[in-house]
């Protein structure tokens, strides 16, 4: 063999291991002075911690433990308590009675059930001896002990027994009730135990041999007493000890040669040797050794301190509880020290489980609130959202910018900054609109493109503004906003010519749309009235025309109010107009009218539905969605379903009005921070819904629609809130009566404007839809129908 191979086969690890061990040992041998000092201090501390029980442990034990735990006092104390003070294994601290305890329990077993000779031979491989040839064992006459009968059988007690009983009573009286009850409880339990002791030797002989010389009272061992007597003996002895004030035996007792009963192995029948097997054949399988079912309780008669040790949970209990709450590291570690190797394994396993949990981000915890109750109890301001609609350039954004400025939501400085920037672009009058028009495109073109949301609060109400685009190309965005609104502010341009243009244009379409989206309350802000010198005639004329077409679009006049305002100047917005020309107006300001408006009824107890209007990333969570909760409620930790992707997500946290909250209910504009979902599954227009009652995704549906234009089988854009998709009218099964809902005509070829018809629409893709939702159908840039899904 070459040298190479010798090196290759050289087991470094083995040597290294050995070396480590050696080193450790050497270190142990020589304690450094610092170590010694530390040890001294540690020992003193441990003794302090142990208090009265210090006597039960030796200094050497303390120091060993300290060394082992690197001077960790707490751990050392815990170890010592469990190992030496509480444990029955505490051989060193055990009083000599312990020996007797063992004897006693043995005697107890044997006396309660007679030893059978058949059992004696139960591990004998009898070979294949036929049954009839097997001999029967006749038990020899058993020498009947004088005190047989025990506590269970009230026979004639011997004199000694009577004496013992008397003494026992006396002792019991002296003893603390608590310990006594404990012991009594154990006794009764013991008497219930059916004992099948499989091994028996002449117990008397054994007990004598075991009884140590240090035993102060040899009498009981010479007898073969029943359980009761024996226990009585113990008690008496304890009492005696207490009376005589025997010094604690702990220190003086030498290490007994007798093994502690726990370690006493159950006598198992040995497997037959190979020789025996060849000789006698395989052992019959029948006589399996019975498992040890009885417990040896050598500590029955121990001092009160020992029984106190059992008032706490047993080591096994500790292990079990440690297993149960694997997360409780401290408890687990204590139990592992106490119970040795086996428990360490369990501990490792629990540690492993913990490690796995760490890999997977924990699910957000739910507080399991009753959200509806919380909502009722909360004294929050009513939250109302309104949409600002009107023809393009009617001054919607400017009006809202002015409102926010006057309410100090935006400061004058910001406006001044905007004004400067706007002037440089040649659009000075747009400065107020820039509060809401934040996109570069919107500012450069001077046109609102998307819905802008902003918030402000008055004393009673918290408002959400939805500033809608007026341009007809962005009506889908306006529909998205209208679906979130409780009421609407219709801005009408009062300047000459502009009003008439608006009435033909988006003023009318917007009014139609908000009505078909379920908005019934409208505040008409007659804007730019300053350009016509606050003419009351103009105001009345406009009011009349607008109320005319609002009634035609099924608004009720009691829900319509008119306010003459100037968005640019801020007249009649928050404060009354200072212009004397406007004195004729005696009604409320815009903000007063806003406050008079009540939110729509919220579907609080319905399953959760929320249309996502925005999706974005934050530092707080990789995926956050914004939307108004359409129905139902949600809280932190809830599992949600995102439709149409059908993916599950969890609510990590919630925000309402930029305040973190625990729950949110219908009607609130909510930011949901989601976890456990890939952002790819969440898009604007998707629906967040209840996991248990999800919204279904369908591609063909029937709506009961009011036609604004001629309907025929044609291609349409289907809008539902933020969502819009391409679709096609498949058929129109019926024209319905406007008020009674009865079928007027079946299968019409065309449905004319103003009619209500049942329309079957097929979508190119599946969309999350359910009955009761409001749908708008558009075609070629015009709204052709709107209605309710059936």
């Amino acid at each position, binding site marked *: 063999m070459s040298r190479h191979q010798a090196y290759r086969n050289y087991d470094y690890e083995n040597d290294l291991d050995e070396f480590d061990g050696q080193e450790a040992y050497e270190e142990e041998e020589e304690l450094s002075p610092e170590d010694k000092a530390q040890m001294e201090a540690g020992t003193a501390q441990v003794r302090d911690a142990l208090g009265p029980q210090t006597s039960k442990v030796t200094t050497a034990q303390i120091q060993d433990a300290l060394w082992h735990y690197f001077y960790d006092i707490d751990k050392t104390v815990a170890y010592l308590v469990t190992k030496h003070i509480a444990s029955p294994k505490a051989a060193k601290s055990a009083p000599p009675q312990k020996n007797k305890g063992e004897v006693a329990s043995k005697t107890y077993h044997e006396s309660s059930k007679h030893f059978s000779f058949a059992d004696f031979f139960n591990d004998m491989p009898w070979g294949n001896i036929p049954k009839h040839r097997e001999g029967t064992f006749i038990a020899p006459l058993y020498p009947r002990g004088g005190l047989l009968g025990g506590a269970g059988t009230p026979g004639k007690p011997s004199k000694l027994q009577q004496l013992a009983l008397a003494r026992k009573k006396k002792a019991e009286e002296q003893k603390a009730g608590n310990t006594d009850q404990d012991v009594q409880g154990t006794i009764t339990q013991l008497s219930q135990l059916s004992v099948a002791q499989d091994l028996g030797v002449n117990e008397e002989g054994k007990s004598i041999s075991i009884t140590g010389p240090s035993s102060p009272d040899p009498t009981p061992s010479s007898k073969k007493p029943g359980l009761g007597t024996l226990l009585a003996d113990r008690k008496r002895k304890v009492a005696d000890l207490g009376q005589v004030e025997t010094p604690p035996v702990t220190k003086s007792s030498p290490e007994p040669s007798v093994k502690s009963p726990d370690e006493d192995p159950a006598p198992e029948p040995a497997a037959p040797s190979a020789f025996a097997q060849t000789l006698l054949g395989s052992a019959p399988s029948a006589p399996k050794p019975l498992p040890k079912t009885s417990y040896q309780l050598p500590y029955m008669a121990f001092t009160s301190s020992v029984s106190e040790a059992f008032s706490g949970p047993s080591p096994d209990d500790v292990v079990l509880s440690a297993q149960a709450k694997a997360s409780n590291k401290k408890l687990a570690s204590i139990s592992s020290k106490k119970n040795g190797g086996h428990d360490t394994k369990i501990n490792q396993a629990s540690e492993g489980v913990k490690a796995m949990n760490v890999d997977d981000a924990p699910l957000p915890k739910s507080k399991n609130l009753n959200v509806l109750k919380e909502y009722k109890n909360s004294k929050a301001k009513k939250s109302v959202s309104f949409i600002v609609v009107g023809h393009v350039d009617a001054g919607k954004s400017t009006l809202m910018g002015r409102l926010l400025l006057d309410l100090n939501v935006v400061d004058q400085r910001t406006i001044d900054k905007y004004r400067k920037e706007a002037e440089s672009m040649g659009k000075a009058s747009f400065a107020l609109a820039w509060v809401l028009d*934040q996109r570069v495109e919107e500012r450069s073109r001077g046109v609102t493109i998307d819905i802008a949301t902003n918030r402000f609060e008055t004393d009673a109400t918290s408002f959400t503004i939805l500033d809608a685009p007026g341009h007809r*190309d962005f009506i889908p965005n306006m529909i998205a906003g209208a679906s979130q609104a409780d009421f609407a502010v219709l801005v009408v341009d009062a300047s000459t010519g502009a009003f008439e243009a608006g009435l033909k244009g988006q003023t009318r379409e917007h009014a139609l749309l908000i009505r078909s989206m379920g908005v019934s309350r409208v505040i008409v802000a007659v804007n730019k009235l300053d350009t016509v010198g606050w003419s009351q005639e103009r105001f009345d004329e406009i009011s009349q025309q607008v109320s005319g077409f609002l009634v035609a679009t099924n608004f009720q006049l009691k829900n319509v109010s008119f306010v003459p305002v100037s968005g640019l100047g801020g007249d009649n917005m928050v404060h009354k107009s200072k212009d004397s020309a406007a004195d004729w107006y005696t009604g409320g300001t815009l903000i007063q009218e806003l406050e008079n408006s009540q939110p729509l009824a919220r579907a609080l107890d319905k399953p959760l539905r929320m249309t996502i209007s925005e999706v974005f990333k934050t530092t707080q969570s990789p995926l956050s969605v914004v939307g108004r909760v359409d129905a139902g409620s949600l809280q932190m930790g809830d599992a949600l379903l995102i439709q149409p992707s059908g993916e599950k997500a969890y609510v990590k946290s919630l925000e309402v009005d930029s305040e973190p909250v625990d729950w949110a209910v219908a009607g609130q504009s909510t930011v949901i921070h989601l976890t456990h979902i890939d952002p790819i599954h969440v898009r604007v227009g998707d629906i967040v819904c209840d996991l248990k009652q999800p919204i279904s995704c369908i591609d063909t549906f029937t709506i*009961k629609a009011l036609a604004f234009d*001629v309907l025929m089988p044609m291609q349409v*854009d289907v809008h539902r809130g933020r969502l819009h998709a*391409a679709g096609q009218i498949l058929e129109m099964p019926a024209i319905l009566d406007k*008020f009674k809902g009865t079928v007027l005509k079946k299968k019409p*070829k065309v449905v004319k404007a103003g009619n209500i018809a049942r329309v079957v629409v097929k979508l190119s893709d599946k969309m999350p839809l359910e009955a009761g939702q409001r749908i708008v159908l558009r075609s070629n840039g015009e709204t052709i129908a*709107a209605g309710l899904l059936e």
Partner: protein
Amino acid sequence: MQLVGSKSSQRLNDIGEGSVTLLPVEPEDMWHANNLISAEDVIKAHAVRKVTTESKTGSTHSERVHTDLTIRVTSTFFDMAASTLHVTGTVIVENSFVNLGQYHTLDLELSRPFTIWKKNGWDSVATETLKESLKQDKEGTVAAVVMQEGVANICLITEYRTILKQRVESTIPKKRAASSDQNSGMRRFFEKTLTTLMRSIDFGKPRPLLLASPGFVAVDFKKYISEEATRKADKTMMAMAKEATVVHSSSGHLHSLNEILKSPEVLATMKDMKFSKETRYMDELFARLRKDDGRAWYGVSTVVKAVNEGAVGRGGGVLMINNSLFRSLDLATRRKYVALVDRVREDGGEARVVSSDHESGQRLDALGGIAAILTYPMLGLDDDEDEDEGDGQNGVIEEPDLII
């Protein structure tokens, strides 16, 4: 499509008469072939067939053989996107590789001639289709991108059909305080659309490009293309940006194409194309339906009634039939429609077979595939139809307020 010398097809004459051999040269021809070939026709074409031979010992050996097969068509399948046509049928002429009655699916290929023989002769619609397919003066196809924020449909408009090449979807952050987010989102969307456009449509030779959107998306996209072209110094992209026309559409969905096709920009470049006339007829039809003047009707039964009355005739009568109806596997149905077309032509009206794969065809499809503009108003054509339908939808009592 080219008509190939009829010598080779004469061999088919022992089966019957009236065969033509055609050579498809461009993908569009496959679409024509699809319109030409109907069930029960006989097709002879080049085929690749796997032939498995079993030797005496039982071992099998299979090989691909190139052969000419003649089949009687049972069904056709046209793959829009790939422009390939699969014709399935039973073999009617035996050769050394195939037996009579075995099934085979022919994959018609470009530049490989095939012969078609119509069992029931060439009717008027079939000959018209054939004539159309043989037209040589092909206009260039137009590429179009119909877009809105976050959605772009890239399609090709040919004379006979509109092909959706690719759909680009991308999420764009909505309006939040940080508007930079949105700008980058928009840029990402443009980038994605542009690369997809370059990949799916060949801009090697200049072709018109239409960019349509509501709002400013198309304008911005055009600007983006020219910016990118200058940045990358890409000649084709520069040409693209130059050729691009921005058209307004009301939405970014594909069906907005009909608005685009009506736009003056498109009509100027493509006014001679077949579809532009059809689009005009469709618009007229819809306008008349809107007016409900009794001169526009749709649906098979009503149109058949009107045609039988002679209402679709000289002086403005137009019958529009989707060519998908002629692809009917049922011969009787096809005959019925052909008879309808013939009747209208006899009466002096105009019969248009509208391409179902085109925008106007899809609009017609929604109306049931058949519609007519009558020369004089006829009212109540659909009345008797109502009578035979007695489903009990009536009597839903609802709240006295407006029901929606």
